[in-house]
């Protein structure tokens, strides 16, 4: 085998320029795929992280029908104390869950005594909210989550700007409860909260106890339960353990709860899907590049060396050894391209990280991409390239092995 490798390697060097060109083509292809995968992976991870860690959580539970009418923040589709208890029981048993938090959502009128507007609000328990959504506090303008005490409000940045309210100003929230009775309360502005992309990304926050006061609720009510998992990749397993909730029915035989993974709740998941399809398409393009370029080089190689193949066959080289000689040549091109391409990709990714590429998404500016190349991805691309090189070499190698030595020797 050592000698086959030696001879194949020297044969590659024989047409040095062609070898370099083909190997570079494969190298560039590998590099392109890996750098793209690193960048899109980092973008996906960043955006998914943003969506799940600052607003959505990984899983949400609502009363059946809530999501369908989420835009008008219905108050008649809240979960009652008994239902909450049932959910809590199941969540506490679920080993995949890190933490969870309750939200009571409502729409109110927001007034600064001069003008008024509509605002969507989340009633939260700030401590649980911060635990379940680690990026929540990063959206707050220089204040801590504990600043959201009872009687205070976190105003969405855009509304704060439009209504010209700032920290420590007093505002009035007016809400209508389920029975139609209107109530207003004064709130102190604790600070502003940055908008993020996705549903609920421009909502304000008050303490959950204040919602109860505002709506004059006699008992506990919750409109959504937000769950954070210990490991986001275990989403399917965690969802499976929550299945009893989706299957739970009331006395009328109708389902009571709806359980959704973040993928169902965020439109960003479609972008993720699109990025994955693009990932795949680029890999297919790479496969074609490798296939065509190696096939081309190997076919040329065989045609140029017909007489030589005739000579070694006449001397007694078996067809299988001739096949191996040419397969090794193709394989070496592929291996070279895969290795050099991977090394260059690591260097480019390192440079991108050192330079720092920033991008904007929606209303968010200055997001920095931190691309990383997973060893897994490098191995997958490497194996694809090497496998395709081998496949591309099979036909020319077999042609070489099948040559009749007499005919081959007659060629000039």
């Amino acid at each position, binding site marked *: 085998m050592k000698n086959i490798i030696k*001879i194949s390697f020297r044969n590659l060097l024989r047409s040095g320029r062609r070898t370099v060109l083909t190997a570079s083509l494969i190298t560039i292809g590998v590099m392109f795929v890996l750098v793209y995968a690193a960048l899109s992976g980092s973008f996906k991870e960043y955006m998914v992280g943003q969506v799940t860690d600052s607003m959505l959580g990984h899983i949400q539970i609502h009363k059946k029908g809530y999501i369908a009418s989420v835009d008008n923040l219905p108050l008649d589709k809240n979960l009652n104390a008994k239902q909450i208890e049932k959910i809590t029981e199941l969540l506490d048993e679920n080993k995949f869950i890190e933490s969870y938090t309750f939200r009571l959502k409502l729409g109110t009128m927001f007034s600064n005594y001069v003008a008024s507007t509509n605002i969507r609000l989340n009633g939260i328990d700030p401590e649980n909210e911060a635990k379940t959504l680690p990026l929540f506090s990063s959206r707050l303008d220089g204040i801590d989550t504990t600043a959201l005490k009872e009687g205070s409000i976190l105003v969405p940045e855009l509304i704060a700007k439009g209504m010209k309210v700032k920290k420590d100003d007093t505002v009035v929230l007016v809400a209508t409860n389920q029975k139609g009775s209107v109530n207003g309360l004064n709130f102190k502005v604790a600070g502003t909260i940055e908008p993020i992309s996705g549903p609920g990304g421009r909502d304000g926050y008050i303490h959950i106890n204040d919602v109860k006061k505002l709506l004059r609720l006699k008992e506990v009510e919750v409109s959504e339960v937000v769950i954070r998992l210990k490991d986001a990749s275990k989403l399917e397993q965690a969802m499976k353990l929550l299945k009893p909730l989706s299957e739970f029915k009331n006395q009328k035989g109708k389902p009571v709860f709806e359980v959704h993974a973040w993928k169902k709740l965020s439109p960003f998941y479609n972008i993720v899907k699109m990025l994955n399809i693009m990932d795949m398409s680029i890999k297919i393009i790479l496969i074609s590049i490798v296939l065509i370029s190696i096939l081309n080089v190997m076919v040329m190689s065989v045609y140029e060396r017909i*007489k*030589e193949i*005739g*000579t*070694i066959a*006449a*001397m007694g*080289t*078996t067809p299988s050894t001739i096949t191996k000689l040419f397969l090794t040549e193709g394989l070496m091109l592929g291996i070279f391209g895969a290795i050099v391409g991977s090394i260059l990709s690591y260097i480019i990714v390192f440079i991108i990280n050192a330079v720092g590429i920033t991008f904007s998404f929606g209303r968010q500016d200055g997001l920095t991409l931190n691309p990383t190349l997973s060893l897994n991805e490098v191995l997958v691309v490497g194996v694809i390239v090497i496998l395709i090189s081998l496949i591309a070499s099979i036909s020319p190698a077999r042609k070489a092995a099948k040559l009749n030595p007499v005919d081959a020797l007659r060629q000039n």
Partner: protein
Amino acid sequence: MISNKHVSKVYKMGEVDLTVIKDLNLEIEHGEFVAIVGPSGSGKSTVLNLLGCLDKPSNGKVMIDGIDVTQLDTTALANFRGEKIGFIFQSFNLIPVLNVYENIEYPLIMIQNLDKQEREKRIMQLLKDVDMLDQKDKFPDQLSGGQRQRVAIARALVTKPKIVFADEPTANLDTDTSNQIITLMRNIQREFNTTFIFATHDEKIVTAVDRIITLIDGVITDDKRIAS
């Protein structure tokens, strides 16, 4: 050693059958130094290819060393050639990516799989025999025609073949070099009792051999032995 019985070779040229060799019966003994001569198109090279196990006859038997080689498949035939047969070509056919030493080494590693010490012993001896020891690290394109043919001869002999087939081995060489090469082959034949079979036009070879087989239109018209 070599015995052909009723061998014929027919090529299909479209609709027409072209008979190149007709009912060839030939016996060649071990250690003979034979030339097959005849005009172009007489079938010299075809006979060489048939005897050298590169081609199979359309009819008849080719027995070499007691084995009917027409019954062997491609791989077995390749192995048979690697063991028993050496080839010397008109245009030398050295492998351009290997140097002199490696070209001679090729059949020993790719075909016979000999260990390194034995290889080196054989190659160094042959390099001395063909007077190419000081050129052993050069590549074929750095050598003259005569030097290349010496390397090709060494390569053909390194496997210790019983028969060496040489198709016009001197056609690309000048008179002096041709004479040197013929003398070299003659010496080897005498020393190792190797059978040499030439297909040639070259008078210099014809006058050097022990037996001349004349072929015209695929038929042996003359077979004479010359007392040396």
